[in-house]
Structure formats: C-alpha cells, structure tokens
C-alpha cells in the first residue's frame, strides 16, 4: 500500500517536471544534476540507516522498494523542479525564497516517508533533514552555475 502511494507521488512529480514545455535546463544538465542529486541522497540515506542508525528502512518489500524509488526518482526530480524554478526567477530575494521553499517541501516529504514507515526517523531530528536539503539545494545551484559557466564560456574557466 505504501509502495503504491509513493509510486503515485513519484509519478506525479515526474509528470509535473517532464510536462513543463519550456524547461530552463538542457537535457544534458537534467542528466548531470539528476545523477548528482541521486548520489547526495543515497549517501545521506546510507549513512543514516547503515552507520548512524538514526533512521531505519523497515525490512519489508513495500517500504524498501518505496525507498529505492524515492531516492532514485522522487528526490532527484524534486531537485530538478527546484533548479527549473530557480532559473525562472530574476530577483535574489525570490531565489532565496525558492531555495528555502523547496528545502521545506523536500523535508516535508521526508517527514511523510518517516510517518508512513518508509525512511523512519529513530533519533534523526527534523531540522537535520532540513539542513541536509538546504545544503543539497545550495550544492545543486553551485554546481549548475559552475557547469553553465563552462558550458557557455567555451571551457576557458
């Protein structure tokens, strides 16, 4: 049941991103940032569940496959939605609001996955998750800026 729920959530956000007609990201950028986001999320999840034991992923197929789906599709696609929105904004203040809003949204989804028994927080504090998603978003923005500088400036930087 929980797997079906997260399957629909994943499909919904993926559809929301891929149905944007005028994307602000090139296909190669989507590929790169998706991979980067998946690396960040999987390392975060692996360290929390396997080393610190601050969270657990219950040993049942539903939550385990839901978590696999979330860490490879849902969180990266939220990262892409965030970068797409970030690129569409002009003012620095709105960009800041965008960074904070998406960090809050992703923290909310992680909290939901904890409540529904997928990535259950044992002693992981919610503000640690919020801090992680904020750093995740800032890293994506920093890497996007570096990559674009290289992409559009002829590789001289």
């Amino acid at each position, binding site marked *: 049941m929980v797997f079906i729920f997260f399957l629909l959530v994943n499909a919904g956000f993926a559809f929301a991103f891929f149905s944007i007609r005028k994307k602000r990201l090139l296909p190669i950028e989507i*590929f790169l940032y998706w991979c980067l986001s998946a690396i960040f999320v999987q390392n975060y999840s*692996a360290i929390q569940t*396997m080393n610190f034991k601050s969270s657990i992923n219950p040993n049942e197929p539903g939550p385990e496959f839901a978590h696999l789906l979330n860490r490879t599709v849902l969180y990266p696609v939220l990262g892409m939605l965030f970068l797409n929105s970030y690129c569409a904004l002009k003012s620095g203040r709105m960009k800041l609001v965008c960074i904070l809003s998406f960090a809050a949204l992703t923290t909310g989804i992680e909290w939901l996955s904890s409540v529904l028994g997928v990535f259950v927080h044992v002693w992981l504090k919610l503000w640690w998750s919020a801090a992680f998603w904020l750093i995740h978003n800032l890293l994506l923005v920093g890497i996007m800026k570096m990559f674009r500088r290289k992409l559009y400036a002829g*590789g001289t930087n």
Partner: protein
Amino acid sequence: MNFIFDKNEWFVVVASIVLMSYIVMIRKHFRPATLIILWVYNIAFIATIDYAIAATPFHVYDCLDNETYEPMAAYAHAFVYTPYSIIFLYYYDKWGIRGKKLIWYLAAWTCYALCFEWISLKFGFLTYRTWRLYYSIPTYPIAALILICAYRFIEKSLAGHPFRSGE
C-alpha cells in the same frame, strides 16, 4: 562504523592507483566535460545498484568488512569501478566497436569483470550472502550497454557546445 584498514582496503587502494594511472594516460581522448559527466553518471549508477543490491531492498552481499557503509566503498565507486567504465569506453571508441564486434567486446569485458569480481571475493572486498558469481554474467553486459547509451547521449548533447577538447 567498525572501519579497519586491512587487505580488502589495500586491494581497493592498489587497484585504484593502477586504474587511475591508466586514466591519466588516456584522458585526452575525451572532452573534459564528457569525462566529468561520465564520472558522475558512473558513481550514481554504481551507488544506486550497490545500495539496492547490497543493502535495501535485496541484501544479497556485503561490501568490505561488514554491513555498514564504509568510506572505502564510496572511494571504490569513484576510483575503481568508474575508471573501468572509462577504459571500456576508450577502447569502444578507439577500435570503432560496432555491430557483431560489440558482442565479442561485451563478452571479453564480461569475462574480465567476472575475474575482477572473483579476485574481489578472494580479498574480502565482497562477501556474498545469497548472490553467486554466475548471477553477474548477465548484469555486466546490460550495465555496459546502458553505459554506451549514456556515452552517446553525452557526446550528442555536448557536440554543439564549445568545450575545448584536450583541456
């Protein structure tokens, strides 16, 4: 975390030094951007597969000393498995591997990868729970074909952009 530096860690370090030295020699074959994107893609792909198979949801083997996520596993993702993929693509390009030749090329690399996996087992880098060496036979060619598709996509996407080659 129970991190001990013993023979399996030395195995990873020695393998990475050999492979990275090879990458330094062949790196100019690729655009710098291609190399970076391929590197990121490979780490993401390997981390995803490794996490899924070694941890949740499949739990079929352990990587290194125990079931925790050790720093050396992340190091191996970046500096052992990824260089293999780059070397695979280097000869794929250099020898113009297409059509029937691709089947032989994939077969040869699968044999090589199986040998490396067997050596990894001997050094305790991998410890099987329910996985068997022959399960890996179909996985290597599939992973290699996905890698070729990713490489073609990267090259096609970057073709119109003014990266300096050989930088």
